[in-house]
């Protein structure tokens, strides 16, 4: 989150103002505000005005996540070489860039999700928008991977690949939150390793040949 240059341009950026205000509050107090009323007061805003933009703190957190995603994609697409990447490399690139974006907000994320509290239950609500956006992105990659035959099409399972990649993003996030190695090198290795595993599993492998063979034997016995 950049520091809001928005204060004077008023109305249009009320939304950004609320988000930035919220992030700053969390950073300074190490927890979220006690109530929307108190928070609105601090922003010199009426409570009902707050509700025109957000309905709860959850929805702000969700917006923060969405912004993290947008920044990641923007950064990623600004890298020229990105277009030439294979599906596997695109996903690797996404995670590496995501971690960079997360790093800029580590204190905020730590005070909300550090320790073991809450990390499980933010999955459904707060990260909803993030998840939607990510799934669109992931499906694009998967589609591309199928075209280039990096990813094997399999009945039923291959429709769930986006879900698997999402779980992986979540794994990386949790790993990174707990990572204490210098400049998060362990997270880099974790990304490299887990993505390679995922894509090896999704790619055509011995299992496919085995199933094919088993099917053949079954049909011809």
């Amino acid at each position: 989150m950049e520091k809001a240059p928005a204060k004077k341009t008023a109305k249009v950026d009320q939304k950004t103002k609320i988000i930035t205000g919220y992030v700053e509050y969390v950073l300074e107090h190490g927890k979220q505000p006690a109530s929307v009323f108190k928070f609105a007061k601090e922003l010199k805003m009426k409570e009902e005005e707050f509700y025109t933009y957000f309905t709860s703190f959850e929805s702000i957190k969700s917006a923060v996540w969405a912004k993290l995603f947008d920044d990641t994609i923007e950064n990623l697409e600004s890298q020229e070489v990105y277009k030439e990447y294979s599906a596997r490399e695109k996903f690797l690139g996404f995670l590496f860039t995501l971690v960079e974006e997360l790093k800029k907000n580590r204190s905020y994320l730590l005070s909300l999700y550090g320790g073991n509290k809450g990390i499980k239950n933010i999955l459904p609500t707060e990260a909803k928008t993030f998840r939607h956006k990510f799934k669109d992105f992931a499906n694009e990659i998967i589609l591309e991977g199928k075209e280039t035959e990096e990813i094997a099409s399999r009945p039923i399972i291959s429709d769930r690949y986006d879900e698997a990649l999402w779980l992986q993003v979540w794994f990386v996030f949790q790993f990174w939150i707990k990572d204490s190695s210098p400049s998060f090198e362990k997270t880099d290795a974790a990304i490299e390793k887990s993505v390679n595993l995922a894509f090896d599993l999704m790619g055509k492998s011995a299992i496919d040949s085995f199933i094919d063979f088993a099917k053949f034997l079954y049909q011809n016995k």
Partner: protein
Amino acid sequence: MESKVKEQQSIPTSKVQRAAKFISTGAKVGSNYMKHYAKKVVNPSMTKEELHTNNATDIYNSLSELKGSALKVAQMMSMDKNILPRAYQDKFTMAQYSAPPLSYPLVVKTFQKYFGKSPEQIYDTFTRSAVNAASIGQVHQAIQNGKKLAVKIQYPGVADSVSSDLKLVRPFALRLLNMNEKELDHYMAEVEEKLLEETDYVLEVQRSKEISSACSHIEDLVFPTYYENLSSDRIITMDWIEGKHIKEWLETNPTQEQKNRIGQALWDFYHHQVHNLMQVHADPHPGNFIIQNNDKLGIIDFGCVKVIPEDFYKGYFSLIKRELLINEDELNEIFYGLEFISDKDTAEEKVYFKNIFKDMISLLGKPFHVETFDFADNSYFEQIFQLGDRISNDKMFRKSRQARGSRHGLYINRTYFGIYNLLNQLEANIVTTKPEWLK
């Protein structure tokens, strides 16, 4: 491994994962032994060779997947040819050439971390996949202003895993090297220190510049230029050295004269470092030498540099003086100084080990005792291997709970074994120069 190098499948990083890797290797080695004895029941004529081959394959596979310091240890064991059974050697020598590469996005990320730019923004061209794998990093080729460059990138987390890797390698080293634990710990500290140094790319650039400028006067040597502004903790940029590795070069059937010339350059290079600079490129494995079309020897990779302490230097090299082998008192003093024998030894042990070391020294010092030495002489190397085999199979030697030899000797020995081996490969006839005080 001759086939195409597989893209990096996985780098096990956490200690548990790495440990698991080793355990699975241990299990495989165990089952190889079982298979061996099972087969032997059926076919009593079976030799241990096959068993060693199986073990070496499994251990190598596991080590090369681990990369980093484990691979480094594999390399090191393959250097000391005389302490490993032949089958292990061949397998391990492969570790000196190839390990699977890292993904390109991670390379980009590393660049962004240190320079805030992608490789394409820095260089005019940059190869997407690695052209070469080093043990703790990989090499890409780049072009800038029409100049070919080699860009070395370190794997993330290598520095972190050095210590835990060595702990994991320990049981294997014990088994393979036939050493007792005390002896091993005595050297492990030295190895760890050197490996940690090797992960420090800033230090490497500094040393490369230092040594290459100090050796620039030696004939037939070529050093790459290092670019500090394009190097960092994890990245080194230097000139690309065009040419062939020793094995490939030998396939082009060079004349004896050419071989002698290259060999002599190698000898002079080490002579100057050891006796004048007192610090030495301690990694003479074939991958670090490149022979150019004009028969000049290119030297790369100053990751492993051993600084030789004065005391050690005096003791170690006065041993190669020929007539010294007769002077008992002087010899005793040096043996104590180099920790070959100590007061903890019994009188019987003292005599026994003094004799062993005398044998070793007179053999290893042989090239120094003459004006020119023909390293093509395989019978000389056969003698060294035999002595090594004889000693390591000797009950008295294996029983000893004492660590023998100064820790500094580890890398110096390794360096000299390395040079001898390279010169043997080259079949070179060398003017074995020695410093004034040893003549």
